[in-house]
């Protein structure tokens, strides 16, 4: 086991434990803090995947800005003290059945190697290199030529220009909608 693998497992286990804690905590503020730990661990995984820029953005935007918003909302709405008592027996039974079924079906994947898995689940023996987007070797070349940020910026403002603009439109819609719903008088 190499150092990278050891570091990966540390982050991966931390992420999974954080996610479980996040959804099992009764106090929403505690849940929010566990979510921060999940996002931090994921940032570590991104860095291991050579995606330093996305890792940094993950910490800045998600673990930083968005989590602060979450906490503000929870505290403003004063949800901290109250806990929900609506988790009765039926929902636990359902959760165990569904979770068990998913675990059993995933257990079948235990002795697969990553390559085997990729080939089998994607159906074809080999991905058609002409039609898939930048990956592997070509991504490495792009990073070497333009740096980590440049390799993201160029497709974002070139190939994906139209979706990028529509994202702006989506934010405009959400802002106007929120203002309309919150206005004193309509």
């Amino acid at each position, binding site marked *: 086991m190499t150092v990278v693998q050891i570091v990966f497992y540390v982050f991966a286990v931390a992420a999974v434990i954080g996610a479980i804690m996040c959804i099992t905590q009764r106090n929403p503020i505690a849940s929010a803090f566990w979510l921060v730990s999940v996002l931090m661990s994921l940032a570590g995984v991104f860095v291991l995947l050579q995606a330093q820029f996305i890792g940094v953005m993950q910490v800045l935007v998600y673990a930083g800005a968005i989590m602060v918003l979450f906490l503000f909302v929870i505290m403003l709405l004063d949800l901290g003290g109250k806990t929900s008592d609506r988790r009765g027996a039926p929902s636990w039974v359902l959760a165990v059945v569904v979770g068990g079924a998913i675990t059993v079906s995933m257990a079948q994947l235990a002795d697969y190697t990553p390559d085997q898995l990729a080939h*089998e*689940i*994607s*159906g*074809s*023996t080999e*991905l*058609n290199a*002409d*039609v*898939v*987007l930048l*990956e592997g070797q070509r991504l490495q070349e792009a990073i070497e030529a333009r740096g980590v940020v440049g390799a993201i910026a160029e497709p974002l403002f*070139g*190939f*994906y*220009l*139209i*979706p990028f603009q*529509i*994202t702006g*439109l*989506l934010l*405009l*819609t*959400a802002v*106007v*909608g929120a*203002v*309309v*719903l919150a*206005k004193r*008088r*309509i």
Partner: protein
Amino acid sequence: MNTLDLLTPLGALFGLLPEVIITITACIVFLVAGWRGSTPAGSRLAGWISLAGIVLSGVALSYLWLGGFSPSGIAHMVALDPFRYASLGILLIVVGLTIGISLGYMERERLLAPEYYGLILLAAVGMMLLAGAVDFIVLFLGLEVMSVAAYVLVAFDRRSPASAEAGLKYFLIGAFASAFLLYGIALLYGATGTTNIILVGVQLSSGTASLLSALGVGMLLIGFAFKVAAVPFHMWAPDVYDGAPTPVTGLMATGIKAAAFLALIRVLMQGLAPVEALWQPVISTLAILTMVIGNLVALSQRSIKRMLAYSSIAHAGYLLVAVWPGSRLGAAALLMYLLAYGITTLAAFGILAMLGRGGERDVTVDDIAGLASQRPWMAFAMAICMLSLLGFPGTFGFIAKWLVLSSAVFEGQWLLMVVMVLASVVSAGYYLPVIMAMYMRDAEPGVTYSGVTVWGAAAGVVAVAIVGIILLGLWPPDLIDLSMESAAALFQRSMPVAIQ
């Protein structure tokens, strides 16, 4: 034949000109909202500006359509083919009619915020992007723009608890459905390595259907089924349609449903055609359940608004029958049906808006007894709408339903055909009582229909729709040819090319 390269900024601007014009109009409407505030004059001005934007967008659309613009190379992000142009045409008509109905309605209901029209336009942009997308990223973003605007529109009448409840329900269910759709898209991306719908088709045809792509297709279908309110994913629809302001209900039952269906058929024909065996059983099951349950539950409704809500669920079932064969005739029938169903339903909601007050939730079949003697034209228009929804010969609804039926029969799908005919017979049980109440019963003593308000824009919308229903019902061949030509675009197989 003109070609456009959507990878260049100028090409993208031209290819998306109808959407860009509507977006700019929406921004102008928001400026009007800031300038005039929530006044009757401001609301009216915003409404007419929005209509002008729709007309201008229609001009841009006909420029693209008549110019026969097509993409250079493979379609990128947004399709440039007659099917997209036909889809946009249907959506613009539906949105234009909705704005026409809203013009007097919002004033009467004292909902004066001009932002209403801006949100309708943004929803329209979302629908157009959703219907025209050839890339799953654009498809999802279009769906979200449409949905976010729709959540707010449903809850627009904040003083009414029903409207607020409908908004919250629609938001929660809608977010849930979007998550399914997004998960499906991610799984398909994992299976094929691309988000371009045409290239997904190329990848899927080169191998056998795998576990990952099957899961992706399933999630995708669940997401779409929520959006078009197909049984068993329809639970939210009656309450939401009932609580929303009536013009918004009209838009949801027509425009939003149409956009989701147009995107669904493009994904199934262009991307998932190689795995037909995976989705055809799902679609036919959904179609049968939706037709049977939608029609049976509609039978027991007394409120006209709720009856129309269940009827729109039933119509989603008929539309799924047109999706099932995966043929050119099916796609053409879908276009025709969406247009016929769209203008008829909006006319019916327009008349309902004129009949009632305070959201029209309590207008029942008994309340319109004897309408024909007091308001003969309104009763006539309502009767034509009901007959067209029923698929009565001589109306546009009949032509569309007949096309859907023949698309199923040509593929030898007798079960769907039989269920659809029986379901249509059942639907007479709730469409005809409306006509009978208006023409064959006397008004309750003392009822003079003095509360009925008719405003010019909505009367114009209903008149245009009724003339359209009758004319196209009597002389449909040109429109059928046009829809067949447009549908052919979905079946042109293109060769894979390298993308940078």
